[in-house]
């Protein structure tokens, strides 16, 4: 327990002094503010370029605005989380920073647990806050079809839970690879491949990407182009490395279960309870494998170039 508490304190200090909170907060906050503004300006821009473009396709509302943010932040947010946190474990062992703590009796479960909880909670909080900020601006800029603060909070909770799963995924990759960039890229590829599985009915309730689908659809139907399911970014390569579906630390898993309890069956063919249970199990397994890996990998400076 002393290791967990010591590392939790250390991670807070590190994130604060290395501006990780600031980078993530600014990133998510920027898109939370800019996406409704861009959406508001889009009709004028398109009209000036293509006067014949049908105006009814450009009548957006608050629901569509938030859905648009969710769709965008899935792609961009994954990059931010992967590149900010890719060295979370790889850097520690690559640079020999674990030598003193481990030789003084630090437990690897405490080290990994503190990092997962800290970054899981921090990223979730930033994502939740930025989504609520986006909701506020969406309602201000698009007065019609307000999804309501409860529905917005549910979507924000689901989005936060999704990004908590990305923290666990990035930490896992960071334990598996010595080079932080390799860890970040692998985590990113897994996140971008995952939507493939949501097109398979049997898999849909077991992959974290379904949280993104539910987060968008639970807001209702927006006017605009609608919330596409299984959005695929261009940077997808190869076959997915396992399901890769993970949910953040237990607390976040609980939050996602709570949010999904409210959502229930969303008409999206995803059983919220099955998804919550599956993701909690997946997170627990991946966290345990991460601890196992860190216990068995050589942490001496310069050792073990896997």
């Amino acid at each position: 327990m002393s290791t967990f508490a010591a590392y939790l304190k250390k991670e807070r200090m590190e994130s604060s002094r290395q501006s990780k909170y600031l980078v993530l907060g600014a990133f998510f906050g920027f898109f939370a503010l800019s996406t409704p503004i861009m959406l508001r300006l889009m009709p004028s821009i398109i009209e000036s370029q293509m006067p014949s473009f049908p105006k009814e396709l450009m009548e957006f509302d608050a629901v569509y605005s938030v859905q648009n943010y969710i769709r965008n932040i899935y792609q961009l947010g994954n990059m931010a989380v992967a590149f900010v946190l890719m060295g979370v474990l790889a850097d520690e062992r690559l640079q020999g920073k674990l030598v003193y703590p481990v030789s003084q009796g630090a437990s690897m479960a405490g080290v990994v647990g503190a990092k997962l909880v800290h970054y899981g909670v921090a990223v979730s909080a930033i994502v939740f806050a930025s989504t609520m900020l986006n909701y506020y601006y969406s309602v201000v800029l698009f007065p019609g079809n307000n999804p309501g603060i409860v529905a917005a909070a549910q979507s924000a909770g689901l989005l936060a839970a999704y990004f908590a799963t990305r923290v666990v995924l990035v930490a896992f990759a960071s334990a598996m690879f010595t080079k932080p960039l390799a860890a970040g890229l692998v985590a990113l590829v897994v996140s971008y491949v995952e939507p493939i599985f949501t097109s398979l009915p049997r898999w849909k309730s077991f992959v974290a990407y379904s949280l993104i689908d539910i987060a968008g659809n639970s807001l209702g139907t927006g006017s605009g182009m609608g919330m596409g399911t299984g959005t695929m970014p261009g940077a997808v390569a190869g076959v997915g490395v396992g399901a890769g579906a993970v949910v953040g630390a237990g607390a976040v898993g609980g939050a996602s279960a709570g949010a999904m309890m409210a959502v229930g069956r969303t008409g999206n063919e995803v059983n919220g309870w099955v998804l919550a249970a599956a993701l909690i199990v997946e997170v627990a397994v991946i966290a345990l494998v991460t601890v196992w890996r860190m216990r068995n990998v050589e942490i001496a400076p310069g050792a073990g170039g896997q």
Partner: protein
Amino acid sequence: MLNVEALSKSYGQTRALRDVTFQVTAGQVFGFLGPNGAGKTTAMNIIAGLMDFDSGSVTIDGMDLRRNRSGLRGVVGYLPESPAFYGYMTAREYLLFIGDVSGLAPAANRARADELLDTVGLAEAARRRIGGYSRGMKQRLGMAAAIYNRPRLLLLDEPTSALDPEGRLDVITLIARMRDAGMTVFLSTHILADVERVCDSVAIIKDGAVVAADSMTRLRERYIQPVVDVVFDRMLESVPAQITSAVHVDRVSLDGDRMSVFMRDLEPGKRELLHALADLDADVASYSLRQPSLEDIFVRLVNSR
């Protein structure tokens, strides 16, 4: 205290350690010597529990390292050659972090941090970020972190290599103080003068194998060939036959007026040499028995096999 038995470790096809065997007695300072790439750091990483090994055994305080890895953490303190810290922390914050990891109570932790910062001479720089420290300052902080938990066995990998002469002397004095306080110190260094100053026993490692391991006194007795240096009052053209033919003389080297006589056996050799010198047609300006050094042993062992 530490018993290393037939320890072997390979990196792919390269054998870093081959059947390394030595013992370290409790309360001693044990010197671990060898040229670069001999396997010293690998051996220390294994003993510190940071690296696995292929075969053999390591026993610390009667406990097998493999079976008691977690139990032995905290028993062993380790200063790596290039200690790595969190550069955004101050030295005091880092030591408090190490204390938190060790489970020290907050008040005891603060007292220990301040005590050690003072001991290693970093009290004035304690609130500066480690990222701005010189290598020598990091080495001192590393020493403080290594002994924070009062380990029974302290492993020091080149602790003085980054220090100026004054800093080196401070560290050597600190090592001697730790030995006096009952700590066992395992010291790897290539600065042989430091080893001579502070070590009780020594192991010399070459190409992953131990070529000698014994107390300093017995190593001197076993491995140092006695040499008598004679200076004449004029240049000699060749080594006099009376000296080369002496029974106890192994070989002789001549450099102008200076002659070095390598003995097979010192006591009878000295008497024989004095008689031979008395018969020479040259006056002796000085006659001295060369003081044996660890460097002589090291060079001889490392170059001879």
